[in-house]
């Protein structure tokens, strides 16, 4: 298809600061691929981006139904952003169900690109529409661009020899091509990705590329749009960047932790949404000194990792809430045996099976208190997809230095969401010190380092250091089974003290905003972005609001209590019913208020702004 320059319509280029686009279609429509390719093009063009995929738990829910709608939202901007955007400016709807499910989120006056070919009588009925919303005037408050993507895709592939099904599956490329055109992005990256994705299937590559280019050319020639848009590059810190999801960052963090410690990494895991991608990713890295073991169940997964740790390796297990519940007894074994272990909990909506593909922060109390006995375990939470990398490295360092299991909390929104990540220079990656005891002279299995209170790590195979450990209470030096009441109390208190001492190494907390004042918003984990953006907005409005983000949930930072006391009011937004708030209230006797949401979705910036405003008034 060649456009004729002479006929090219006059089109304005509108410069925008930030745009939020949501792609929505059937779960088989390829919306995730479309969204991530579009995001990639924006990132490569220099924008800051944040993405949020939102898909049903069913692999293929009935086509055309509301239950089967899969969405992918991306915000891209010419300035640093913190969230995937609250409400989309643009909705690409491949069928009526996609329109119906997502319309309530669209900004008033927002742009709808609707695939009219998907708006068949049957699909309208399945989505519960009595009349076609594209025709009955009900979308008058929006700008609707009807495009028969289905038919245009068929036309582009006429005579290609592909089956009707294969042709139908290519229509997402038309939408992608059109959107890339609308935002003035080059097609090259998407084409290159198609080639590597469908390696050995040149007919599919060719077809997809053809449709992609057809979508792009259609935008250019069809005179549907009076403007195209430009979102100039953001000023990010200098460096080399890539896009990264939280699960990818965790996998890379694990490889880095193994290499930086010089230990063999051993991941024991069992498939569970939304953590499985970590297992998938690591299983490809056998040449990086990491072994993956898909166990028979969650318990075996952590047990095998504990066995690896006993053998002097970096043991890791990854899971989500229901799996963590099953692992708790084994976590306690690692607490008692005082072995290093890395445990990743990618939280999802609960309780029970809950909302497997949706996000929530409701495992905090489970990981802190869900085990029998006095069982202190360090807990760190990642604040963004890229931050998962650093969090995992830090957790591994703590685990090894203090001979303890450490839990890293991520969640569904950062596990699958992406952001640009500045790739660390090798010099930024500090070695993780590992000291195995080899000297038999005076060895006692539970004798401790006076500073960290860690016992020595001994690799089996070391002559003269043969010893036995286990889950029964141990004599505080010899490690022999001990029922002595005083010894038990000493050991309980020592294990607690060991974990408390980790806080000595934390950097001072940083308050964003004034260091004291009217209101402090305290958050943890993936809500960082929404809270940071909301607090900035409030300050822009002249409100006295500061933000404190907690990476360490156990032990809590030593300066936290003092910081809380400097503010008249403390508010804790969480995607649960107030778990951190409960801890802050009991620990610091502070009358913290909560902003709580449990809808399987992240906070929107606007809702936080509103709720905080209410608290201020």
């Amino acid at each position, binding site marked *: 298809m060649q456009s004729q320059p002479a006929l090219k319509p006059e089109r304005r280029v509108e410069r925008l600061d930030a745009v939020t686009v949501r792609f929505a279609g059937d779960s088989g429509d390829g919306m995730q691929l479309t969204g991530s390719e579009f995001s990639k093009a924006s*990132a490569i063009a*220099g924008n800051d981006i944040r993405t949020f995929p939102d898909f049903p738990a069913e692999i293929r829910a009935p086509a055309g139904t509301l239950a089967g709608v899969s969405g992918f939202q991306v915000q891209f901007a010419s300035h640093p952003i913190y969230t995937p955007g609250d409400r989309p400016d643009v909705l690409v709807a491949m069928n009526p169900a996609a329109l119906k499910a997502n319309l309530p989120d669209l900004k008033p006056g927002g742009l709808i690109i609707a695939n009219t070919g998907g708006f068949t009588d049957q699909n309208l009925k399945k989505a519960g529409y009595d009349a076609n919303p594209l025709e009955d005037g009900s979308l008058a408050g929006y700008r609707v661009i009807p495009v028969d993507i289905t038919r245009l895709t068929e036309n582009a592939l006429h005579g290609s020899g592909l089956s009707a099904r294969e042709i139908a599956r290519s229509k997402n490329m038309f939408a992608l091509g059109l959107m890339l055109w609308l935002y003035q992005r080059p097609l090259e990256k998407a084409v290159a990705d198609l080639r*590597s994705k469908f390696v050995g299937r040149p007919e599919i590559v060719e077809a997809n590329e053809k449709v992609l280019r057809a979508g792009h050319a259609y935008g250019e020639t069809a005179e549907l749009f009076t403007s195209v848009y430009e979102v100039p590059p953001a000023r*990010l810190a*200098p*460096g*080399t*960047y*890539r*896009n*990264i999801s939280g699960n990818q960052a965790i996998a890379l963090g694990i*490889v*880095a932790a193994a*290499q930086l410690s010089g230990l*063999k990494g*051993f991941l*024991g895991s069992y498939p569970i949404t939304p953590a499985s991608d970590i297992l998938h990713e690591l299983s490809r*890295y*056998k*040449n*990086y000194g990491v*072994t993956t*073991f898909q*166990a*028979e169940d969650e*318990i*075996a997964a952590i*047990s*095998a*990792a*504990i*066995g*690896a740790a*006993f*053998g*002097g*390796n970096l*043991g890791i297990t990854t899971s989500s809430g229901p799996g963590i519940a099953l692992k708790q*007894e*084994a976590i306690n*074994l690692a607490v008692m*045996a005082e072995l290093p272990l890395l445990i990743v909990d990618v939280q999802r909506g609960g309780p029970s099976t809950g909302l497997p593909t949706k996000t929530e922060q409701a495992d905090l109390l489970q990981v802190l208190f869900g085990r029998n006995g006095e069982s202190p375990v360090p807990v760190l939470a990642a604040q963004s997809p890229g931050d998962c990398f650093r969090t995992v490295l830090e957790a591994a360092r703590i685990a090894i230095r203090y001979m303890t299991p450490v839990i890293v909390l991520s969640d569904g929104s950062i596990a699958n969401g992406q952001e640009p990540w500045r*790739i*660390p220079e*090798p010099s930024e*990656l500090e070695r993780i010190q590992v000291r195995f005891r080899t000297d038999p002279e005076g060895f006692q299995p539970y004798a401790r380092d006076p500073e960290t209170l860690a016992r020595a790590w001994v690799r*089996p*195979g*070391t*002559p*003269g*250091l*043969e*010893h*036995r*450990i*286990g*889950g029964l209470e141990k004599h505080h030096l010899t490690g*022999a*089974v001990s029922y002595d009441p005083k010894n038990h109390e000493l050991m309980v208190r020592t294990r607690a003290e060991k974990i408390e001492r980790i806080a000595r190494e934390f950097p001072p907390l940083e308050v964003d905003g004034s260091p004291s004042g009217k209101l402090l918003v305290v958050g943890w984990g993936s809500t960082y972005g929404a809270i940071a953006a909301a607090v900035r907005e409030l300050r822009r409005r002249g409100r006295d609001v500061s933000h404190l983000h907690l990476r360490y949930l156990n032990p809590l930072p030593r300066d936290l209590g003092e910081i809380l006391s400097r503010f008249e009011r403390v508010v804790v937004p969480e995607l649960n019913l107030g778990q951190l708030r409960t801890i802050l209230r009991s620990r610091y006797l502070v009358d913290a208020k909560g902003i709580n949401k449990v809808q399987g979705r992240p906070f929107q910036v606007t809702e936080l702004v509103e709720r905080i405003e209410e608290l201020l008034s």
Partner: protein
Amino acid sequence: MKATAVVGLTRKDFQTDQEVRWCPGCGDYAILASVQKVLPELGIPRENIVFVSGIGCSSRFPYYMNTYGFHTIHGRAPAIATGLKNTRPDLQVWVVTGDGDALAIGGNHFLHALRRNVDLKILLFNNRVYGLTKGQYSPTSEFGKKAKSTPYGSIDEPVNPIQIALGANASFVARSIDVEARHLQEMLRRMAEHRGTAVLEILQNCNVFNDGAWDHLTNKETKAENQLVLEHGKPLLFANGKKGIRLRGFVPEVVEVGEGGVDVSELLVWDEKAPPALAFALAGLASPTPIGVFRQVERPVYHELEEQQARQVVERLGPGELSRLLAGRDTWTVE
């Protein structure tokens, strides 16, 4: 892994300073003595031996062995040992478990260790009762068993550990008896030689909660009638050679041998390498009860497959370089 040099260790080297705390008269003492007798013969330095156990009377075993030891949680020893062996193939890893630990709470891990053929030596003490929790019926207790939790008799059909192991395609499956020291030690040596998961069911007497469970096999008066010793390549004879096992179709039957009975040549000649269905059929016999090696075959060992795969990946892709991995495929630079 096997040391070629004789290490010159003795039984004493494998004893710890811990007071052994099983009930007086417990069958576990005899098993401990046999293990401590055999280990020095293996030529493996004791620092390269690890005992991993779960929970139960038998699982106290590691505390009494002067090797590396890990007394873990109920049922999980095979899973913990799998992670250990897979990352430390240089170690000889023994698992000590019981009928409750391995077949009730840990049934899943037992099954999966066997089907993967992890190079573990599993000692399964079977006393047909829960001892440490003071006398409840176990997965191997006989139907109708009256125990603390079944005052009117158990309505659970028992499992047969040998048949479960065979069903999971275990590459080494054997049975012995706590007090048959010579036989037990021979079985321990055989397991130590085997590459892959070796399971040894040890019929063990709990003299407090289930005394005499195996009396018919150990009592001098009755044991000849009830013990059938499996020996590779030899006809199945017992009762001092007066009786034997013949196959009728697929059913093993007890026959009189010699005068008035059948000729030895009609008896089943034991073959450890035979298809597992034969061993399965034989394992179903209660009277006589077979002891010895039911099955010993070679099949790929888990950690070797793992190592081989890793080697192949390195050959194909080269050793992984962290900076390249972190960069991924699509990068851009901000000046």
